[in-house]
């Protein structure tokens, strides 16, 4: 009886172990750890700032036009 109990327990334990293994998901931790992701962040930030400068320029031009129009 004891043996059977030990067997079922060990089976359950091993099942729990495999279940845990399958839930751990691989993420790109190494990529961030060695720092290369910062390059991507920098590139995207630069592109976005470029777009923003473009928008600001249109904004300024419009403000100028609006002022001329109300004169």
């Amino acid at each position, binding site marked *: 009886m004891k043996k059977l109990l030990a067997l079922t327990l060990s089976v359950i334990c091993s099942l729990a172990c495999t279940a845990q293994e399958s839930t751990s998901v691989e993420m*790109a931790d190494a990529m961030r750890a060695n720092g290369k992701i910062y390059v991507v*962040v920098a590139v995207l930030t630069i592109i976005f700032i470029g777009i923003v400068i473009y928008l600001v320029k249109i904004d300024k031009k419009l403000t100028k036009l609006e002022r001329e129009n109300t004169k």
Partner: protein
Amino acid sequence: MKKNWWKILAVVLVIYTIVAGFLMDVPAKPILHETIRNQYFHVCMWFAMLITMTVSLVYSIKYLLNSDPMHDVIAFEAVNISILFGVLGLITGSVWAKFTWSEWPLFSVKGWWVNDVKLNGAAVCMLVYMAYLVLRGSLEEEQKRAKISSVYNIFAYVIMIVFLLILPRMTVSLHPGNGGNPGFSSYDLSNTMRMVFYPAVIGWTLLGLWMMQLRIRTRKIEMKNYL
């Protein structure tokens, strides 16, 4: 400068989204892996679209109430910017789905579009709003154009709500947040993700409103010069 604080806020929030969106921890989930970070970009496109479409609806109703041509212009430009966000949302969603939902290889033509109720609904919704632009383009007389397109816009909004928010929840859908399970809880949004996601929604929306404002101001100058 005082009047433009919200534009600065928009830029700061989107830069925060880009930096924090890539560097903050995200929950590790099977299938999604790092693509869960798309939530800060793809989902925000749709939120911004919904908000700008609501702006458009409000101004269409306002136009019908007081016939101010400026309100019609605002409604029109709001639709323009919401179509931009919607198309970006469709394309980014297609790319995301290709690498999570389908098992076709990278260079296969297949797998870019899944016959899913949410995806088809979003595509139909875009067509409905593009029809609004066609309708406007086909009417010459200004008052008539404003009135008819305002009425159409109200119907388009209702159709958008049905196709994007109601029908996908009544059937099975691959897309998260559907299949009778609405709301934020279904995204399993962790608290660290919330800290990026909500500012991201506000940031992208404000950015869209800025672009919308630029176009409205251009129209105003145009109207003054041609009248």
